[in-house]
């Protein structure tokens, strides 16, 4: 990668020998210093290889004694008696099923899926958080799109039903809808969140 550390003597010309000599001497000096083991001459460093002496902290013999191999520690007992205090605080790994409420819609407006209203040709699988898979996005230049994901079954029939609902019942003049068969989603041009959500809930999805 880089040029070799020891350059060709001839590259230095008449001073090549001298420079190489100085470099060799320095290397020898460094090697001898490393072999001696101590950075500062005159200080007494412990021979125990596991002893770490932090020079910035005052030297406490009891602290260093604890870290030595011959130190005596009190007996340890492992118990899982109080683990339930930790367990009840840990969050669940997967989203749980929603509880049974007295009346629907709930206070936040949430409705569970209603199988009796669902048609047989297609289905919309709810998200992991039991919400409708309905998403709105605003693009640059003001373009808006609405998407319905997780469509199962006859996606073309679903597109027709949604189109009919929006144009006839909701009075929207025209809706451009993209059917993505491989990705299993429908994409609308414009903001149709409320109307589409009404349609989906009407169908019991």
């Amino acid at each position, binding site marked *: 990668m880089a040029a070799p550390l020891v350059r060709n003597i001839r590259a230095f010309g008449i001073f090549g020998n001298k420079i190489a000599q100085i470099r060799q001497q320095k290397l020898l000096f460094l090697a001898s210093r490393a072999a001696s083991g101590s950075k500062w001459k005159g200080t007494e460093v412990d021979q125990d290889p596991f002893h770490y002496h932090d020079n910035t902290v005052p030297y406490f013999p009891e602290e260093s004694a604890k870290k030595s191999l011959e130190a005596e520690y009190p007996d340890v007992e492992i118990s899982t008696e109080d683990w339930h205090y930790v367990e009840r605080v840990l969050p669940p790994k*997967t989203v749980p099923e929603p509880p049974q409420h007295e009346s629907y819609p709930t206070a936040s407006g949430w409705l569970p899926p209603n199988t009796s209203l669902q048609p047989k040709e297609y289905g919309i699988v709810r998200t992991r958080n039991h919400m409708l898979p309905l998403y709105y996005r605003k693009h640059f230049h003001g373009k808006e799109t609405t998407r319905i994901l997780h469509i199962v079954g006859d996606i073309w029939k679903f597109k027709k039903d949604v189109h009919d609902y929006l144009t006839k019942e909701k009075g929207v003049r025209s809706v451009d809808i993209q059917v993505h068969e491989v990705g299993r989603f429908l994409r609308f041009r414009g903001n149709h969140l409320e109307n589409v959500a009404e349609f989906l809930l009407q169908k019991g999805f």
Partner: protein
Amino acid sequence: MCMFMKMNVFRQIARTNTCVSLIQRQCTAAQIFLQRCFATKVFQGDEVEASARVVARPSLPIITSRKIQFPNPYIEPKQAWLENMDTISSEKLGIIDLHPDVFGTPPRMDILHENVVWQHKYRYINYEKELSKGDLDKRRRKPFPQKGMGKKRAGSTKACNWKYGGSAHGPRGPYSTYYMLSKEKRELGLRIALSVKYAQDDLHIVDSLEIPSEDPEYLQELIDTRYWGFSVLFVDDTDIMPVNMSLAASEFGQYNLLPVYGLNVYSILKHQTLVMTLAAVEKLEQKLLEQMHKADVRK
């Protein structure tokens, strides 16, 4: 039920210590149900021949119920035969349900392609390097005076236009093409690969990978009889495999053993047939469904 479970334990103890983990393996509900229906027979593992039957089983297939976590309300579970590895020709031990989101996902070639490309690229290091002007071990001196030579002016012999000079814009040193595909795409890729294998009848589920003999010919005959394809990937739930299977499969490059945690899209697509144990299917489904329905998702 107790007799059969003891029988299972005897069979396992007869093998070497490498199978110790099998004894502690928990029995799933499906396995317990199967065990209840089977006839009991004590078996001495070392005395069996390759062609002999290992366990007396009823001839009719048994439908087992398997609990599906997070069921899809619109798609019914997929079904697959539960086969055995004890005999050359497969005996159908039962039918088990497979989760439609794991084994019945609509195919997405782009996701599979992304996964395979990622698997290659993230660990690929390009070692190409061309020495630049500064890397060359040549003199820095001006080769000849500026004027009077009749030659083109030059400051060093390392310039790119010189013969044996440096390379200006060549590849510079080893570099990696490391990047991480999102967990969602990786998990979706696995599900799609498994669905593709299932749809094309290349997925087989067995009760365990224990075979009666370590002779590689037994394994070859078994695979040929069942038309399992040129290459087979055997997937078990733990990384400690039965002795006979390990010895037999080591003779072949195309038959490979893999624990569930090593399952990846490239291996699934590379091997023509995928053979999974029931325990591996349980573990895999549990992991994939946990990932699909996990609570902490960063958007």
